[in-house]
């Protein structure tokens, strides 16, 4: 099987519109301030962490396909452009780029708007909204913007699905069906989704955004990070509880060496976090928990974990980083990224991140 390297990363998060902003927020280690999202019919608003407006309107928004798109597409496109910046995909028409977009809730804004219009009067429901409700819309718009995506798929699932997406991208590369593959996890926010999360996981603070990882076969264009392992998907069932699945995932990642980072998915929901905390209770190395800082971004949060792990390795702070994803209702999966010694490291901050707890 081919070796798979990380070419570049992209992120849109409540910290800002690039990986540097994500890194800065995680390094500071302080939870980002929450904003209130009004819930119609309720006096008490829902706490959320919104993606800030970009300081300058992104140039990509002038693309005709993005005229009516919802925030999730903007996040997907921004993170993808950051992650493919060095590939010059638009200058070589023969370059075959693969795309896997992973979502849990997907295009909730237009779905709710369209359904609201349908309930009022279907005869006047806007035909402009409906196509933007499908899970595949962000991938489609990104394909139109980039122009040379030859293979694309949208996967739906709980946040661990992001690692299924990485595995699919690695498979496409191994089979030489693409020259590079973008794997993106993304979500957007509205009050209905925040309300649903409140029902399922009350202490969590919903957030939105996207994370992108671009994979390739050769070490030369990489940021000095190699994908070393993705565990099996340990699916939950009555015979395989979330706790058992998390432990099985942990077991597959093996005993980690000193100086390795664990980037986990622990947030501030004791009930939800219990399985993951249990699986990693013997972990004595440094640990980073992006959800503490950023909030519950569902699939985007899974992508940020992987982006943060790769960024920490690329920056020379760790020789390897493990990612733990104990999904909400489907599966537990883990991944491991290592420094690719033969690769050239282009990102080096040399700073010790404040969020990493020894």
């Amino acid at each position: 099987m081919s070796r798979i390297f990380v070419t570049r990363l992209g992120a849109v998060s409540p910290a800002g519109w690039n990986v540097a902003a994500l890194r800065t927020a995680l390094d500071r280690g302080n939870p980002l301030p929450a904003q209130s999202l009004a819930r119609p019919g309720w006096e008490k608003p829902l706490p959320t962490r919104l993606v800030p407006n970009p300081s300058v309107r992104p140039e990509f928004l002038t693309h005709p396909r993005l005229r009516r798109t919802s925030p999730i597409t903007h996040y997907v496109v921004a993170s993808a452009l950051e992650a493919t910046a060095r590939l010059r995909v638009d200058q070589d028409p023969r370059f075959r780029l693969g795309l896997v977009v992973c979502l849990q809730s997907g295009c909730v804004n237009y779905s709710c708007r369209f359904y609201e219009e349908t309930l009022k009067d279907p005869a006047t429901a806007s035909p402009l909204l409906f196509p933007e409700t499908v899970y595949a819309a962000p991938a489609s718009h990104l394909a139109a913007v980039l122009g040379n995506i030859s293979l694309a798929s949208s996967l739906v699932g709980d946040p661990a699905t992001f690692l299924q997406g990485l595995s699919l991208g690695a498979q496409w590369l191994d089979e030489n069906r693409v020259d590079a593959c973008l794997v993106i996890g993304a979500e957007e926010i509205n009050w209905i989704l925040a309300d649903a999360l409140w029902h399922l996981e009350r202490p969590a603070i919903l957030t939105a955004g996207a994370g992108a990882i671009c994979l390739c076969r050769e070490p030369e264009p990489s940021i000095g990070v190699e994908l070393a392992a993705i565990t099996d998907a340990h699916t939950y069932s009555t015979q395989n509880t979330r706790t058992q699945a998390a432990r099985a995932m942990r077991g597959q990642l093996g005993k980690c060496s000193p100086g390795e980072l664990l980037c986990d998915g622990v947030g501030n929901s004791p009930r939800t976090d219990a399985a993951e905390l249990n699986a990693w209770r013997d972990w004595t190395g440094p640990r980073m928990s992006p959800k503490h800082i950023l909030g519950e971004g569902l699939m985007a949060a899974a992508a940020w974990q992987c982006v943060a792990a790769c960024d920490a390795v690329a920056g020379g702070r760790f020789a390897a980083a493990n990612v733990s994803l104990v999904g909400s209702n489907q599966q537990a999966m883990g991944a491991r990224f290592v420094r690719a010694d033969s690769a050239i490291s282009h990102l080096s901050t040399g700073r010790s991140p404040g969020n990493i707890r020894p």
Partner: protein
Amino acid sequence: MLFPTTSSPQAPPRVVITGAGIMTALGRGWKPNAEGFRTGRTAFRPVSHFNVSRQRAKTAAEVDLPATLPPTRLSAKQTARFDRAASLLLLATHEAWQQSGWEPMENLPFVLGTTAGGMSFGEAYFRQAVQTPRRHRHQPTRAFHYQPQVQARTVLEALGSNGPITIVSNACASGSNAVGHAWELIRYGQAERALAGGYDALTELVFSGFDALQALSTTVCRPFDARRDGLALGEGAAVVALETLESARRRGASILGELIGYGTSIDHHHLTQPHPQGDTTLMVMNQACATAGVTPEAVDYINAHGTGTVLNDSSEAAAISRWAGRRAATLPVSSTKASIGHLLGAAGAVEAVVCLMTLCEQWLPPETLFETPDPACSFPIVHRPQDARVNTVLSNSFGFGGVNASLVLRRWT
């Protein structure tokens, strides 16, 4: 480990189908569906699940669900939480499972295509959430069971099995992509067996969406007819049991057919409109046939995506004509959406099972309401029931967003 894999350097294994389950408005299971498709029966009726009095279109191909679901390892409490979509999925999966003769197993990949999953839960959640005074009753259950991975997990558990679940949501190509993805998992050495398929139930939001786009026919669904005026929606599910030929032979299984080719790509032209000349469709048909090692001359029938919209059918007709060349003049084509409507995320999987039926029973499914060929069709549309020698068939699926997929299946003799 999913990565790195221990994929074999040998040639990919042959992948056969040893079980198939299907639920459509034509009926429950292989037999009534085969009879319906063979005779070209249409299954449309006035929509009863929600109010369509303010919609342009009033009909769809609704499924009559049985009063009780088949006995499985699920408790009554678990099945009581099923919505229509989950029930359709369970029924199709159960049939495929029974036919395959598989025993409960661990690590059985379950690859599904859907566009809406448990959308009816989402709709109910929304309707209650916007009401005042606020009520929370049932909302957590709806928020949980709305998600397709939860439905898939429950259905897999009904069979006493467990394994990785992959939900593909490439709009109306999802079902074909799911079957193709499972085929690739097996060929890539990640599994010896897999369940794959698609499911979608009729929902108010989706019906209203297609109606708002004026994509729904207000007369009858007539794919490739010069007078076509739109698609008709349906609901259903189909699941196939895929395994290596070696596995099937080892256990002496009955083989329904062989999946020999798959192609997929993305059309950048427009979010909802295909490229007018069907460039991407042509590409995926070529890809599928290249992996299958067949030429258009070897293909005996095409089950077209054929939605019945003006733009889709003219684009697909152009692509088929370009792909088939001189073979087009004698290549039978039909769209079974004329009988059961467009099943969205289930369409590709259901149509793959229809292709299996043509291979097993040697007939071609007609569009009995087809009258006047569109001038873009250089190929004959099957419009009367007919027996035929069918050895290799190709099935097309295209989705909103531009993902296209083609599957090639071969008769097992």
